[in-house]
């Protein structure tokens, strides 16, 4: 399983937030300006291609913060 810090770092890559360090574990990702269906696809494909980590669309909907999401992935 990917480490917690590395997990959060990936969202800067996916969201192309190069000089922005505003994401925290408590950020509600669905409230981000960038959030749309393309971002959902990008998250799924990014983690699958780079970390062999399968994130289902459902788990993205069922959780709100990055922390919730990470914890749900650990449990599954």
């Amino acid at each position, binding site marked *: 399983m990917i480490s917690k810090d590395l997990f959060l770092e990936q969202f800067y890559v996916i969201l192309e937030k190069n000089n922005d360090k505003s994401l925290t574990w408590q950020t509600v990702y669905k409230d981000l300006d960038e959030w749309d269906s393309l971002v959902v*696809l990008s998250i799924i494909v990014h983690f699958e291609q780079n970390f062999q980590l399968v994130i289902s669309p459902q788990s993205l909907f069922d959780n709100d913060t990055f922390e919730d999401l990470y914890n749900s992935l650990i449990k599954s």
Partner: protein
Amino acid sequence: MLSGKNILITGASSGIGRQIAIDVAAKNGSAFLTGRDYQRLSEVSELISKNMQTKAPFFPADLTMEEDIMRLTESLPLLSGVVINAGIIDYTPVKYLTKEKVINVLLINFISNVLLIRRLLELRKIQASASIVFISSISARLGVPGTSIYAASKSALSAFAKVLAIELSTKRIRVNVVSPGLVATDLKEKISTIKNTQTDDSKSYPLGLGTVNNVSNQVIHLLSDKSEWMTGTDILIDGGFTLR
């Protein structure tokens, strides 16, 4: 409606292809099924045999393998209809595409279908006045995020069909394309789940989401002699999606 017609259906083990196979048999045609999944193909064949008292021979084949195309085409009788339905759906944002993924989608959705038709023509397995129907997608006409290679593969199929239609017109072999919108199948369920982050898909369709029967009905019409003056068309069946 299809009495006396031998019709090959690719991707017949599930979804739209499965429904077309069942409807061909229901309209008294002889359905010849192919697909990759032996178990599911045999179930469709059995279902047809049991409910319609007619045989539906099935030929498990991976059409990306030329030897499977050879084996399949040599096993088939003279055909009066071909439905090219086999394909996969791929949802990958462009920046995550890999060479392997691009090649795989094009191989399954386009190249293998082209090579199958080519081989059927070479063996003269498609009779004069036959009907060839390609299943494309509304995606080929839209700009849905994540569908670049899938849409490109379907666009390629539509373009190929148009040229094939003119090349085969001297034999009165008709070639048409059906481009469905979102249809309730297992594959589409997964897509809907992803897209539902933004909108409820069914609300985008004035007539609601389609069913496999909606698509199959159109295909049956194109396979029948009732559409004998139709060739080179690309029919959109989208429940009014593109009206908006």
